[in-house]
C-alpha cells in the first residue's frame, strides 16, 4: 500500500469524504445501539431529540458547548503554532480558582466580572508559561509537561477544596463557597437557562479569527507553526511568538473554567470539568484548527453529549456511547482529511 499526494483535490473529494466520515460515524452509532440491545434508529432519534428536540434541550446543548468553545480555541491557537498544549484541563481549573478567589466578596460590582475574567486568563496563561519556558529554554517536550500538569492541578484543586477554600457551610462536601451575586454571569435572556459565557465564547472565537488572519502576531504564529526554520530565518522571534501563543492559549482555556463557575455552577468543585480540556482537543481537531469551525464542532460535540445523556435515560443505552461516538467521529474525520490529500494505491 502506498500514498500518492494529490496536488489539487477536487471539490467533490473535499466535501464528499468528510460527509462520508459523518455517515460512517452514524453507522457505527447504530451498530453500538444494536449491541446494547436497543433499536438503532430509535436510539439515533432519541439522541437528536435530547440534543435539540426542545428549547430546554437546545439551551442545555449551548451551555455545554460554552466551555468546549473556549478549550477548543485554546487548543486550536496552540496547535496552529505547533505548540502541543495538552494541558487545557489544568488551565481551565486555574481560571475556575480565580473566579472563586475574586468572586466570593473580595470585589464588588461593577469591577468584579471584568477583573476576575482578566485575572483568570492571566492565571491560565501562567500555568502554560512554565512548560513553554522549559520548552524554549531547555527543549523539554511540552506534551509531557502540560499533560502531567493536569494531574498536579487536579490534586491542587482537591487540596484547596478540602482545605483553604472549603465551604464552611458545605456540610462537609468538598466544594468552595458560592460566588456572590455580583460575580455571577447573568443570563442572556431572563428565564432562559443560558448565560453570557456563551456570548463571550462566540466573541472569543471571532477575536481569535481576527488575530490569526489580520494581525502580525497571527502571521507569526502561523509561520512558526508551518515552518519554524523558515520563520526563524525570516527574522521572526520564534521563542517570543511561542510564549505569546502560550499566553493566549492558556488564557482562553482558563475562561472555560471561569465561565463554568461564574455562569453555570456558582461554585468550584473537583468535578467541575468532565474533561473539557481533553475534549477541547477533539473539538479543535474536528474544526481543522479553524477558530470559527471550533464553534460548530463544539456545538456538535456538546449535542452528542447532551443527546446521549437524555437518550440513555429513555432507552437504557449507556452514556459511554457518547465517548465512543466522538472517538469514531474523530478517527473517521482524520482519515477523511488524509484521503482528501492522498490517494491510496494498493500494491
Amino acid at each position, binding site marked *: 500500500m502506498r500514498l500518492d499526494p494529490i*496536488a*489539487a483535490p477536487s471539490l467533490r473529494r473535499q466535501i464528499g469524504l468528510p460527509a462520508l466520515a459523518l455517515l460512517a460515524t452514524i453507522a457505527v452509532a447504530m451498530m453500538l445501539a444494536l449491541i446494547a440491545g436497543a433499536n438503532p434508529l430509535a436510539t439515533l432519534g432519541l439522541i437528536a431529540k435530547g440534543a435539540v428536540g426542545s428549547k430546554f434541550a437546545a439551551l442545555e446543548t449551548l451551555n455545554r458547548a460554552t466551555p468546549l468553545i473556549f478549550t477548543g480555541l485554546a487548543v486550536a491557537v496552540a496547535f496552529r503554532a505547533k505548540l502541543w498544549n495538552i494541558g487545557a484541563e489544568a488551565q481551565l481549573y486555574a481560571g475556575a480558582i480565580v473566579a472563586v478567589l475574586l468572586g466570593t466578596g473580595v470585589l464588588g460590582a461593577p469591577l468584579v466580572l471584568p477583573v476576575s475574567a482578566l485575572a483568570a486568563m492571566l492565571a491560565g496563561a501562567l500555568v502554560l508559561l512554565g512548560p513553554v519556558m522549559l520548552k524554549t529554554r531547555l527543549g523539554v517536550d511540552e506534551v509531557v509537561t502540560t499533560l502531567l500538569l493536569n494531574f498536579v492541578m487536579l490534586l491542587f484543586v482537591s487540596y484547596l477544596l478540602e482545605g483553604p477554600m472549603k465551604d464552611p457551610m458545605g456540610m462537609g462536601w468538598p466544594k468552595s463557597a458560592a460566588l456572590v451575586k455580583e460575580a455571577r454571569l447573568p443570563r442572556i435572556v431572563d428565564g432562559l437557562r443560558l448565560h453570557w459565557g456563551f456570548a463571550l465564547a462566540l466573541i472569543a472565537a471571532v477575536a481569535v479569527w481576527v488575530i490569526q488572519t*489580520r*494581525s*502580525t*502576531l*497571527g*502571521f507569526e504564529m*502561523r*509561520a512558526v507553526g*508551518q*515552518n519554524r*526554520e*523558515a*520563520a*526563524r*530565518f*525570516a*527574522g*521572526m*522571534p520564534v521563542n517570543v511568538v511561542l510564549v505569546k501563543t502560550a499566553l493566549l492559549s492558556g488564557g482562553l482555556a482558563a475562561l472555560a473554567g471561569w465561565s463554568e463557575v461564574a455562569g453555570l455552577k456558582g461554585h468550584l468543585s473537583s468535578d467541575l470539568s468532565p474533561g473539557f480540556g481533553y475534549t477541547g482537543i477533539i473539538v479543535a481537531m474536528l474544526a481543522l484548527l479553524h477558530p470559527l469551525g471550533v464553534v460548530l464542532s463544539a456545538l456538535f460535540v456538546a449535542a452528542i453529549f447532551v443527546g446521549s445523556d437524555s437518550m440513555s435515560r429513555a432507552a437504557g443505552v449507556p452514556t459511554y456511547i457518547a465517548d465512543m461516538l466522538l472517538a469514531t467521529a474523530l478517527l473517521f474525520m482524520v482519515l477523511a482529511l488524509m484521503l482528501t490529500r492522498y490517494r491510496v494505491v494498493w*500494491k
Partner: protein
Amino acid sequence: MTDPRDVVMRLDRITKRFGALTANDAISLTLRRGEVVALLGENGAGKTTLMNILFGHYVADDGRVEVFGQPLSPGNPRAALAAGVGMVHQHFTLADNLTVLDNIRLGTESLLSRGASRAAARARVDRLSRDFGLAVHPDARVGSLTVGERQRVEILKALYRDARILILDEPTAVLTPQEAEALFATLRRAIAQGLSILFISHKLHEVMAIADRCVVLRHGKVVGEVTTAETSGAALAAMMVGGEIALPEARPATAGKVLMRLDGVTTPDKGAAPGLKRVTLDLRAGEIVGLAGVSGNGQAALADLISGLILPGSGSVTMDGPLARWSPREAIRQGIARIPEDRHKTGTIADFTLTENAVLEGYWQPGFSKAGLMDWRAAEGFAQGIIAAYDVRCPGPGARIRLLSGGNMQKLILGRVLEPGPKIILANQPVRGLDVGAIAYVQSRLIAARDGGAAVLLISEDLDEIMGLADVIHVMSEGRLSPGFPRGSKTAAELGLWMAGQGFDHAA
C-alpha cells in the same frame, strides 16, 4: 546498424500524465552495452518522473520498459534491481552508523550472519573496488567518510547487486573537480567491462567529456538525440531551453569601500559541519566575492553568521562600526539581502501564499503593518510588483508557493530581498537545481545588483559558476578561508587543490 542484441535497456513511448500536465510524452530511449548516455534537461523537463517510472515508484500511463529484452513489470521497485539496474541517487541512501561492508550488504543479506558469508562478501567487495578503482575501506563507518567516498560506496552497492546498468543522478554535484575526475575514471572502467551507464546531469562540459550520446528532454518530450562527438555545449544548451540563451557576461567590477569586514572570526562546529576557523574576509561595494569549496566545509557557518542566525565565537564583524546586536531581523535592518541555500525549507513556507512569502521578512515594517495589524492589500501589491518585475510565472499572488517551480520560487525570493535595495547580498547556492533559463536570470540580477553598488557574496559548490561570476575567489576547506584570488588568476585545477585542503598551511 548495430546488433539489436547489444541493446540492454529500451524505453518505448513512455507517457505519464499528472492531471493536465504531461510529465513524460512518448519518451523513447535505448541504451546499448558499454555505452554512456546522458539524459539532459531543465528542471521540470521530466527526468525525475522518468527515473521514478523506471524504478517502479510511478506507473506509466502508456509505454513499456525492456531490460535485456525482458519487459520490466511496472510499479514494482524490486523489479528494476532484480533486472540488473542500479541507481546512484543524488542524495545518498546510506546508514551512517554502519560500516561500508554492512551498508553494501544491507537489504540483500542478513547483517547478523558471521563467518563464511561475511568473508565471502568482503572478498567480493574487495575485488569490485579493485576492478573498478573504487578505493574505500570496507570496515570504515560511513559516517566518517567524505562525500566522494560515500558515492563510491553507493556505486559499490549497485555493483555488488550485479547491476549491469548504472543510473547516476547528478553524480558530480557534490564532488571536487579531482573527485569528479576519479569518478569518470571509474565509469570508464565500468564501460570497458561491458556495463552501460545512464548519466543525468546539467553540467554540459561533463556530459561532453563522458557521454557517447545525449538525449535532451524538454517539457516532457525528447527534443533531440545527438552523438556527443558531433555537437557542442552551446548547441546542447540551446536544445535544452529551446533557443539560443545568452549567459550573463560579467563586466569587470570597480570595487568600492568595504561594507562588511570579518576579522579573525571563529564559530563553533555544529555536529559534523565545521565552524569558521579565524576567517578574515572583506565584502566591498560593487564586487562579487565567490566562495568555492566542497559542501560541508564551513560555508554553512559563514552563511548563518551573515544571515544573523549565529554569532561569532571570537573575532569581530564590522559594518559601519562593530555590530551591537545580531539576529536575522537585525541583518535585514542593516540591508543584507539573504538568499538561503534551501529555498523550500528555509526560504519559503510551502503552504503560504506568494503574498505571505513576499512579506515573510518585512511584514513588521511600516509599509506592511500598522499597530500590529497586517495591511494585506499593501502586501499583495508588493507581491504583484515582484511577480511583474521578476517574471514570476504563477497563477497569482494568492496561490500557494508550493505550486511554483524552483526557478519561480527563487525569483520571488530574489524580489523579496532585492526590492528594498540591499547593501550586501548573500547568495547561498542561488542557482542550484534551477533550469538554464532561470540560472541566467538569477545570475544577471546578481550582476546588476553588483553594478548598482552592492557587495555580493556568492557561495557555490559549482566551480564553473564561481569562476564565471566572481571578481574575487576564496576557497573554503574545513572552516578555513583561503586568500582572495582575483578573477582569472587561478585555474580550476589550482582551486581544486585548495578545495582539497592544500595550500592553507603555507598561507597560515
